[in-house]
């Protein structure tokens, strides 16, 4: 039972962690809370099927074999984020964070309505990798293959990202930009390159979430990114705005607490699971208002 619980918690937390990472990356380099991230996820899901308002979905890109499909969808996500950066956020680069946030809201609404126009309002079924749902026995636990893949994917993504940030030039520039963007620019860090890089990474992380969600649920829905976006945003706040490792830890934590509450609460209290979850979030923020892992750059120096 406890091993089972651990896997359930990791699987849910993992999805939230990847989504939170996507938001934290962009916040780190340009202090933008990208509320359109949820719609990036939805767009990446809908990219799998052909645009049509018919009730029955017809697979488009989703027909491709997995080794081709995964990079294609990741580039769809990255391309969308890059386009959003170039068309919406670059012209607003010098605006206040609040203006940027409102801009991202507007972009999210626009994207959602674009999906509604192209695909209609009815949820669509997508049969993608149905075999991944089959349970595998590990010790006392029965875990769907997909959960194992999700957990493995998170480890790969985190290690890859850590290497990228620590070892590569763009990583160094991103870290410098996250610490103090103005100073980094003066020292010759190319702003456009860093910001575009962060958006591309963030967009492909949204696409990863999209693929996991589709494989898990088999459904595409115009509203599907919203809830994940909300939890991921809370995770970035709890983790400390701008801290990448904080976002990951908090994303995992929120997913884990959610799974624990679902398993542990008495039946009458279970419908209010999220109320307990957010109460825990408030509690954490009371003791650590700056989040669990506030990066050095965001601390106020007197």
């Amino acid at each position, binding site marked *: 039972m406890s091993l*089972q619980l651990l896997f359930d918690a990791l699987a849910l937390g993992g999805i939230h962690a990847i989504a939170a990472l996507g938001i934290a990356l962009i916040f780190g380099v340009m202090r933008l809370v990208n509320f359109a991230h949820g719609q990036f996820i939805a767009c990446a899901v809908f990219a799998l099927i052909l645009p049509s308002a018919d009730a029955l979905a017809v697979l488009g890109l989703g027909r491709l074999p997995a080794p081709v499909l995964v990079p294609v969808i990741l580039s769809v996500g990255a391309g969308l984020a890059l386009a959003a950066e170039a068309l919406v956020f670059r012209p607003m680069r010098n605006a206040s964070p609040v203006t940027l946030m409102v801009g991202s809201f507007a972009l999210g609404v626009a994207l959602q309505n674009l999906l509604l126009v192209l695909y209609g*309002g009815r*949820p669509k*079924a997508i049969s993608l990798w*149905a075999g991944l*749902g089959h349970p595998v026995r590990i010790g006392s636990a029965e875990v769907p293959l997909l959960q194992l893949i999700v957990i493995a994917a998170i480890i790969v993504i985190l290690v890859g990202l850590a290497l990228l940030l620590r070892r590569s030039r763009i990583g160094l520039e991103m870290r410098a930009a996250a610490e103090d963007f103005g100073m980094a620019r003066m020292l010759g860090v190319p702003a456009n390159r860093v910001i575009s890089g962060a958006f591309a990474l963030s967009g492909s992380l949204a696409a990863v979430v999209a693929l996991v969600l589709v494989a898990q*649920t088999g*459904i595409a829905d*115009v509203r599907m990114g919203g809830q994940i976006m909300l939890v991921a945003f809370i995770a970035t706040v709890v983790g400390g705005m701008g801290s990448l490792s904080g976002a990951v830890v908090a994303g995992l934590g929120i997913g884990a607490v959610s799974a624990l509450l679902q398993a542990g609460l008495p039946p009458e209290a279970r419908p209010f699971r999220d109320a307990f979850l957010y109460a825990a979030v408030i509690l954490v923020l009371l003791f650590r208002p700056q989040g669990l892992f506030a990066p050095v750059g965001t601390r106020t120096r007197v």
Partner: protein
Amino acid sequence: MKLAPGILATLALATPLKAEDLTIGFAIAKSGWMEAYDTPAATAAKIRIDEINAAGGLLGRQIKVVEADTRTDRAESAKAGLDVVDQGAEMMVVSCDYDFGAPAALVAEGEGMNSFFLCAEDVKAGIQGVGPNSFSSSVLAPVQGATMAEWSHARREARTAYVLEDTFIEYNKGICKGFDWMFPQLEGASIVGSDTFKNDDASIASQITRIKALPEEPDVIMLCSVMPGAAAAVRQLRAAGINSLILNGSAVDGSYWLDATPDLSGFVVPVQGSIYGDDPRPEVEAFNKAYEAKTGARPASQYAYPGYVLIDLWAKAVEHAGTTEGAAVTAELERMTDEPTAFGPRSFTPELHHQNTALMQIIEITGGKPARVDEWRISQPVPLDVLMGQ
């Protein structure tokens, strides 16, 4: 003779003019996500209107339709209601869902007009939530849950049930309430556990772990959910190797979502009529054909039907009352007991403007193919206190 023009005018008014059109206002979602649910039922309503017009109209008047868009927004819904009233509506058809239809229905109520929800299945979408002139012709959610309970007990020897409730909307709670009321009353039947999830939960792994921890797999799982969460839950339940018969409400009728769980079997829903061409009543298939002729495709789910039924019932009541005035038509509607319609008998009373019992067709999905397998009418109507959730 200064008076003459005045007298002539009076005479002109007294002579019967060609009867004016009778106007029905549709304050429904023509954009936003609700559009996908409102349009099929509204189209069905217009099919019945066309039939009535072709047969000479209602009270000798041709029915004209005016429309306003709620944009799937509660505030816009009230505006859309006012808009169709301004356009001369004498009866108002409002959005499928209680939350999105009620603001417009309240406008109609304020004008003393009848309002009909396109397919609401929450008891509030009527006297209890809107007012004395508001109706829905669909079948209440608790009736669907109770139908699943009694049918599975009688025809599939279901004795143990597990209830999995999606807390997203009132409709889901209604399904579960009906099931929870009916199932334990049946001989030898008991609910062995229950759990909740949220429609947009990315994973229901913990809920599945709880079901698998039961000493024996339950005979049936009552899943009270709607799309997209319902399809996601079914996919995860089956993937986890849980083979219980899964029951749900009418809301998941349709084959459009079946790709989410390839080769799904043992999934049952109650519906008002079959969209799959196998309904034993020829009127139902005749309607499906008429719908296809009008839109180019057969109905995607049973939710087109209540639109047809509501115009049918209202028009009958208007014929009897001889007027479209709200209170008079309401009185005629409330006199209807098992009034035959193409999709089964319908009743209204001064206490309830909904169906607390109904003949439902049972649709079962086997090997990814839905088919009508049976029909069922619950042995006793769902009592009002269960409907009200007390």
